[in-house]
């Protein structure tokens, strides 16, 4: 495996993850869509990069590649935390809206929020 090639692939994936992190911080639906596309591209490139690197000299225990991989993993886990925050935020709000709109179900869970086809009556 070619250590330099692998390091370059890992660094490229890390650069993509930086964009993902930026998008997750923005947290708008459009930014989240972009994040998914960027992460998918990072996956594909990294898989291809590893396959190509296997044809080169041995990269096992390559210190630079290992450091680049650890850096990438840190960014991935940071992205995961931010993604979970977005999810928690929206599901929490959804539950709150559900409680306000429909109260609680018999099992104590919040009633589902009627997200579509609402009829608004004014009197």
């Amino acid at each position, binding site marked *: 495996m070619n250590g330099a090639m692998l390091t370059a692939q890992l660094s490229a*994936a890390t650069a993509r993850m930086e964009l993902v992190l930026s998008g997750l911080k923005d*947290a708008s639906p459009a930014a989240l869509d972009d994040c998914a596309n960027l992460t998918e591209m990072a996956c594909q490139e990294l898989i291809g990069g590893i396959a190509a690197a296997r044809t080169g000299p041995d990269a096992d225990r390559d210190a630079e590649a290992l450091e680049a991989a650890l850096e990438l993993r840190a960014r991935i886990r940071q992205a995961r935390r931010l993604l979970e925050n977005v999810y928690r935020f*929206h599901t929490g709000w959804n539950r709150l809206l559900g409680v306000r709109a429909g109260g609680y179900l018999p099992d104590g869970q919040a009633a589902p929020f009627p*997200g579509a086809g609402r009829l608004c009556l004014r009197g």
Partner: protein
Amino acid sequence: MNLLAGLSVTAGALNAYDQVLEVVQNNVANSSTPDYAEQTQNLEPLPFDVTDGAVGGVELGEVSSARDQYLNQAVRSQTVLLGQAQQNVTSLTALQSVFDVTGQSGISAALNNLYSAFSAWAQSPTDSTAQQSVLTNASALAQAFQQTAANLQTISGNTASQIQDTVTDVNNLIGQLQGYNQQIMNGNTHDASLDAQVDSTLDQLSQYIDFSAIQQSDGSYEILMNGQTPLLIEDQQYQISYQPVGPSATAAYPSGPPTASIVSSSGVDITAGTTGGQLGALLNIANTVLPSYLGDGNQQGDLNSLAQQFADTVNNLLTSGNISDGDPSNGVPATPGVPLFTYDTTNGTNVAASLAVSSTITPDQLAAIQPATDTTSEVSNGIALALSQLATPQNSSQEGDLDGASLSFSSFYGELAARVGGLLDTANNDLTVQQSAVAQAQNQRQQSEGVNLDQQAALLLQVQQAYDANSKFLSVLDEITSDVIQMMDPSTTT
């Protein structure tokens, strides 16, 4: 509609729109106020029915804040974690500086120098210079332990002061909120600048502690620390306090250092539940991290344990040896060795701070001779050799015991330093994540203000789909990266 009625409607509408304009101007005027929430003016339709004289038009509805408590709580929840991460980085950075792992100074260097002195002495067991070098380097090691313990105690003292300061800050902020509650309860419920002041104070509070702020029907805020301990209800403040608590008389180490305790106004110990924010981080440093080195009522502390185990190992070797052979044929017995190190034997948590070279030992009292046994003959430098082998132990009797694991004393010390290094790495990672998380929550708050329920429902659907896609790809990417790491360094934890 008659002319007068028409004029009346027009006048009412103008009055209403005038107030709308005031609200808009208020928003502009307060645009630079921290935490100011945009105010919206609701215009409510009046009934229009010519048969009973209702003339229609609009009138002012209640001024409503666009800020949702949920949005603020989401930001504050992340700020609690940010405060905790920031404090952890600050405290652990100070702690890490106590442990030099480069081998250039401190315990690590002193240990290496003493091993070298043992080795030189083993080469020339009767050489007075080599003997003196052992005493000099043993003394330097003892001082290094004392200095490390003193530095840790200084950090412990600073941490206690910071806890006290944080508790004071929390009580002061709650005091400010108490004042705002009084204003609100006196009828000042639609004051945008007061609203901003309340929010700003709550945001500051979230750096220190984990709390919930529940707005009551009268507009006042009820503040509960850790979700259950009242700090503010209506205009009544409940102060928390800091108390250092020493070990009980029946504790394993009754003379051990005190731990930090946070007590509610009713005298209830709420330390265990106080894990978030700056205060939570400080309590963790004071009650978990520092005691793991310096001890408390329940544990000796690993620095003390290392000091005692090393001193005992050296002393046991020296006292098992002989300073001189004596003259058995003339009835003169061999002169047994004497201990090199002394320490406070009455308090296990004071060993590192009290470690010293015996004030009575002289260079020529170092016992180098390993006496003959039933199966082995006397070795003139056997003890000195055994001491030099502590650098690269040959068996478990030359090693220390750290939580059941046998390690060389150098590795033992390395583990202590690595522990704080690992904690600091984690804290730095947490800090990076939390800085992003707070920015993210602030963005979410900004984006969500003014979004109506229908927009919100559509947003939820979009976010749900994006979450699923992102989650899937992140999992795949994490798996690939972890495989690469494992391939290059199987010892790395996933």
